[in-house]
C-alpha cells in the first residue's frame, strides 16, 4: 500500500510540473498535438498506478519524452508557418457573407446541426446576421457578424464610457495583497478610507475587494459565520 501511495504522489507531482511547464494553452482550447499529448499522458500515468509490476520509470519516461516532443513541436511551429499548417492545419471558412460554404462543411465533416449548435452557443440564431463563420484549428467555431448587426459601442454612440482599468485584487479572504496595492499606486491609508466608506473596520471583514488604478472599487463583505 505504501508503494501505491508513493507512486501516486510521484506521478501526480510529475504531471503537475509537466503541465505547468507546458503552459496555459494546455488548460484552455487544445490544438491537435496538445490533445494527443493530454490523452496519452493521462493513460501513461495510470499504468504504473494500476499495476505494481510495471516499473515506475515505464510511466515517467514516456511522459518526459512526450513533454519534450510537445515543446519542440510547439516551439518550431511557432517559428515556421508551413510546419504550423502541416501540424495544426488551417482555419476553415464555413460561412462567407451569409452564405454557407457547403463544400467546406463537407470537407470538415461539419453538419448543419452542429453549425446551428455552435452558433446558438454564441447567442446567434439568425444565420443572415453572420458575415463570416470560421472553424478554427482547435475545433472552435467563431462567428463574425455583419457590421450592422454588431452591438453598438459607446464610441459609436458617442457616449462617455468612463475610465476603464484593470481590476486587481487588493483584499482576498481577509488578507491584504500589499504588492497589488502598491502596484496600483495606493497605500494602506487609502485602503483604510475605502474600508471606512464601506462600513468595515478591518480587512478581515472583507471577502473580496478589487480596485483599478483610477480608483474604481468592488467590495464584497464576508458573510456572517453560522
Amino acid at each position, binding site marked *: 500500500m505504501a508503494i501505491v501511495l508513493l507512486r501516486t504522489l510521484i506521478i501526480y507531482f510529475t504531471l503537475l510540473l509537466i503541465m505547468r511547464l507546458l503552459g496555459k494553452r494546455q488548460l484552455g482550447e487544445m490544438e491537435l498535438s496538445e490533445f494527443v499529448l493530454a490523452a496519452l499522458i493521462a493513460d501513461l500515468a495510470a499504468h504504473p498506478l494500476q499495476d505494481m509490476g*510495471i*516499473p515506475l520509470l515505464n510511466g515517467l*519516461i514516456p511522459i518526459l*519524452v512526450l513533454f*519534450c516532443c510537445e515543446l519542440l513541436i510547439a*516551439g518550431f511551429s511557432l517559428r515556421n508557418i508551413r510546419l504550423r499548417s502541416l501540424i495544426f492545419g488551417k482555419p476553415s471558412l464555413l460561412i462567407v457573407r451569409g452564405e454557407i460554404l457547403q463544400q467546406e462543411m463537407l470537407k470538415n465533416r461539419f453538419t448543419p446541426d452542429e453549425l446551428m449548435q455552435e452558433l446558438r452557443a454564441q447567442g446567434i440564431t439568425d444565420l443572415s446576421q453572420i458575415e463570416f463563420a470560421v472553424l478554427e484549428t482547435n475545433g472552435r467555431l467563431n462567428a463574425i457578424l455583419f457590421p450592422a448587426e454588431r452591438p453598438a459601442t459607446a464610441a459609436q454612440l458617442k457616449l462617455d464610457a468612463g475610465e476603464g482599468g484593470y481590476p486587481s485584487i487588493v483584499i482576498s479572504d481577509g488578507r491584504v495583497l500589499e504588492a497589488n496595492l502598491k502596484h496600483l499606486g495606493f497605500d494602506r491609508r487609502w485602503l483604510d478610507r475605502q474600508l471606512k466608506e464601506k462600513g468595515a473596520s478591518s480587512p478581515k471583514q472583507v471577502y473580496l475587494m478589487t480596485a483599478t488604478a483610477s480608483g474604481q472599487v468592488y467590495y464584497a463583505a464576508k458573510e456572517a459565520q453560522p
Partner: protein
Amino acid sequence: MRREAIAAGLLLLLILGTVLHLQYTDSLIEGVEHGLDQTEQAARAGDYKAALRALDSAHSLWDKHRSYAQAFFRHPDLDALQDAFASLEQLLRQEDPAWPAALTLLRYHLEALGDMEHPSIRTIF
C-alpha cells in the same frame, strides 16, 4: 528558444540514457550467462558441487544488480527469472538429470529480458 533547447537536451539525455542502459544490461546478462556456461560445463562433467558454486556465483551477480533491474524491468519477468534460478538450483542439488531443461529455461528468461530492451521490429510492434 530556451525551452526548445532544454527539451532537445532532455530528449538527447534520455536517448543517451537508453544507450547506456542497453550496454549495462548486455554486460550484466553476458556476465550471468558466463556463470551459467560454467554451471553447464561442471554439471555435464558430473561435478554438481562445482555446478552449484558456479550457479550461485551467477545468481549473486544478478542479485547485486537487482535494484537496477527492478527499476527498469517488468517485475513478473524478474520473478520468472528468480523462479528459474531456484528450480535449477534444486535440480542440481538433487543431481536430477532433468537439469538441462531447467538451465535452458533459465537462459531463455535471461535472454528474453535482454531482447526486450533492444529495439527491433519484433519488440516495437
